[in-house]
């Protein structure tokens, strides 16, 4: 991809025909399409583009101080890197040749915009604003009716002196996470991410991958960590470094070694992963179908009937015609009586009535079919089947009773006597779950507890009640989400690249100066451990003792 080689001291126009004859006519035709990013021949634009790139690149590049000009030859290559010699001792290439390898020909406005967007303090400011908006979104109750906000943030007694319901409703803070303000900030952050990756990090990769030897001892001694070792050989240093996991290149008396280059690439991966997640999230928000349904045991529903689209990209598929039948709903309990897990046995039938899938789902174990996922999220009590005085079975509908907290309570009522009289009296039955029913008589006094299917009748004021079965209903949540694979890919990449970016990119140069070895090195992250590591290496280098005997290696251990 980047097998470009050119000589920056010459005028590029002469170089072009040798390397990319294809593009020469593009130059004259004012290049409308710019598929190849090898349009290096934009020196007409280069000078003005110089400025915008330098704003963005300044942060990363100038770690050596000044940008001293011009190395003689720069070779960017993929695969096995070849060498380049840098007489001035500076391995930084000037801004224009660096970026001209990557930039497409833009107009001047997008270029300035790119420069503005890739500004780091702007990005930091955006992140702060997004964090503040999210915090605000947790403090203000979301999704309530406007009346709620009128009462909570009244105009005559504003919170903090100025915050009234007008702020909340006009800025969309009642649905903060889908409000234009928040989404706009996210879009801005995405734009900044893209701009920064493009202008700053990709050139940085090129610089880091390109490496050069340092040929003068002064240049080496100027590094962050530098030392001289008398009576040593640079070859021994190379062997020790190779043993420690460095990649070592030896050319004559000079040596270059590096380790942890992945740590320079990884931040790019992090940014790209975040962009991938944002794209996937947008797709999820605009292109999925969702719906919930509570189905009593034994009934069916059709997938397409219960799901609703969420955005303009949602398109239904053939699998929406599938019919789902709830064969059985049951729950497991702990010994203490708490609910341990709830299960639903589902069968899926396609449009011809053939069963295509049968599975028992539970919480944390959904059913996936044709892109649609069914989750077990809730349960309910549908009906109670009883025998009254041996007759029946009668199905009594069960209704939920309101309670504070998470616990559920269901109840039903069997009227005794005239059902038309205004004060209907009857037997009340309450249940917290499907395993036991509590019965109360006409005065509301507790009578007893029965389990469904235990075949034990109970006598309430002369009426024999036997609980046959408690029929539950399964609360299912259905969803089809095309963005999930993309988002998962983004997640995996983000996790991996975040881990890799912990690595520190260490570089070591060495020069054999007579019998002395001059060593210098630097690293970008592990600034305290690097000198210790270097000292350990230096201690391990054998000392060359001048004698007529074959060279004795005294390994100095500490």
């Amino acid at each position, binding site marked *: 991809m980047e097998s470009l080689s050119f000589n920056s001291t010459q005028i590029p126009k002469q170089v072009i025909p040798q390397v990319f004859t294809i593009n020469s006519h593009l130059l004259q035709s004012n290049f409308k399409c710019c598929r190849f990013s090898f349009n290096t021949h934009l020196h007409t634009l280069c000078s003005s583009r110089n400025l915008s790139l330098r704003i963005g690149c300044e942060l990363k590049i100038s770690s050596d101080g000044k940008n001293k000009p011009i190395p003689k030859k720069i070779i960017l290559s993929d695969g096995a890197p070849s060498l380049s010699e840098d007489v001035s001792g500076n391995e930084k290439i000037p801004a224009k040749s660096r970026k001209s390898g990557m930039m497409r020909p833009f107009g001047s406005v997008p270029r300035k915009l790119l420069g503005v967007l890739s500004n780091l303090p702007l990005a930091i400011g955006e992140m702060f604003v997004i*964090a503040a908006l999210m915090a605000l979104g947790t403090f203000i109750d979301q999704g309530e009716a406007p009346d709620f906000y009128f009462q909570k943030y009244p105009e005559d007694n504003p919170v903090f002196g100025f915050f009234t319901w007008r702020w909340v409703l006009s800025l969309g803070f009642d649905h903060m996470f889908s409000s234009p303000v928040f989404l706009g900030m996210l879009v801005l952050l995405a734009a900044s991410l893209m701009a920064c990756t493009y202008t700053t990090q990709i050139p940085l990769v090129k610089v880091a991958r390109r490496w050069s030897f340092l040929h003068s001892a002064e240049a080496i001694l100027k590094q962050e960590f530098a030392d001289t070792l008398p009576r040593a050989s640079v070859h021994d240093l190379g062997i020790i470094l190779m043993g420690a996991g460095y990649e070592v290149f030896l050319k004559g008396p000079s040596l270059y070694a590096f380790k942890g280059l992945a740590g320079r690439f990884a931040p790019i991966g992090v940014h790209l992963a975040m962009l991938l997640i944002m794209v996937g999230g947008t797709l999820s928000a605009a292109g999925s179908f969702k719906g919930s349904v509570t189905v009593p045991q034994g009934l069916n529903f059709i997938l397409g009937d219960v799901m609703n689209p969420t955005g303009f990209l949602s398109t239904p598929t053939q699998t929406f015609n599938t019919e789902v039948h709830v064969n059985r709903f049951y729950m497991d309990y702990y010994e203490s009586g708490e609910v341990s897990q709830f299960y639903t046995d589902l069968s899926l039938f396609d449009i011809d009535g053939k069963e295509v899938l049968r599975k028992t789902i539970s919480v944390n174990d959904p059913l996936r079919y044709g892109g649609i996922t069914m989750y077990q999220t809730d349960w309910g009590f549908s009906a109670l089947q009883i025998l009254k005085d041996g007759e029946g079975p009668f199905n009594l509908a069960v209704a939920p009773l309101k309670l504070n907290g998470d616990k559920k309570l269901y109840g039903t009522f069997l009227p005794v006597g005239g059902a038309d009289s205004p004060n209907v009296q009857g037997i009340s039955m309450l249940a917290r779950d499907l395993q036991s029913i509590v019965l109360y008589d006409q005065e509301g006094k507790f009578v007893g507890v029965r389990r469904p299917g235990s075949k034990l009748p109970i006598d309430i004021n002369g009426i024999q009640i036997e609980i046959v079965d408690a029929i539950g209903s399964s609360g299912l949540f259905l969803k089809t989400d095309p963005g999930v694979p993309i988002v998962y890919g983004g997640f995996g990449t983000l996790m991996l690249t975040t881990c890799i970016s912990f690595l520190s990119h260490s570089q070591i140069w060495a020069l054999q100066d007579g019998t002395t070895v001059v060593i210098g090195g630097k690293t970008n992250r592990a600034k305290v451990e690097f000198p210790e590591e270097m000292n350990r290496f230096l201690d391990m280098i054998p000392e060359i003792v001048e004698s007529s005997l074959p060279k004795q290696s005294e390994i100095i251990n500490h």
Partner: protein
Amino acid sequence: MIFSIFEHILTHISFSIVSIVITIHLMSLLVDRIVELYDSSDKGIITTFFCITGFLISRWISSGHFPLSDLYESLMFLSWSFSIIHIVSKIWNHKNHLSVITAPSAIFTQGFATSGLLTELQQSAILVPALKSQWLMMHVSMMVLSYAALLCGSLLSLALLVITFRKNIEIFGKINHLLIGSSSFGFGEQCMNERNNVLRNTFFLSFRNFHRYQLIHQLDYWSYRVISLGFIFLTIGILSGAVWANEAWGAYWNWDPKETWAFITWTIFAIYLHTRTKKNLQGANSAIVASLGFLIIWICYFGVNLLGIGLHSYGSFTLTSN
């Protein structure tokens, strides 16, 4: 029953050991450093680590699920993570003083957990259906580890801010004793012993500034490394939580208060890491961001639980005053 006795014994042992370690540190801060005691404080933290590990394992066995299902267990896990971080940082670099931060943190979290405020949570409880998943281990343990690492890093940054902005500190003379007498912070060992006697009196003033500068530099560096590590764990924790949420509740992000605050924490520490790329923002500015992060972690961990709402209500508790 035997497990709960075992747990009680282990918590008491670890609590006492950590108190002894803190006492040793305080003594060496105020009095001259005693080398042998100092090494034993290292061993003390390792013993604490084993005690809390034993506690967690016995709780795992007795309750049948991974010991991270409510606030008490997560607090014990947090103090366990502090001891791990201490041990790991000792392996990384034998000479740093992270234990000054980790040991008191471990003891405070453990003390709070075992105090009377949370007695009703101390019995091991059963897991609700939504928590019965393999993801529980990965997601919650990563989050608690990340909280521990980020708290350590933020505390180091706070220490940096305190030292930068206070001119005359009485105790600084004592800290100099500590620094001069010890081969701490990566200085060459050979310098130290000479300095101990000769330089102490004559070059005290410039020495103090030099040491202060070096101390700030070291705190800055260590806070950066520890926070990077914590950031990695936080990323993995948040993302594994999202994948779990997709498996259990059908959506990988619900703008639940706890999720949102975890994301805010992530954003603040991302800002911290970005401020360190520019040389002129390093030092005090990034330390201010990290200190803000300290507050935000506590809001994320405790504050949201106090509200008790949302999908993450397993960790909620109410402060009962007896």
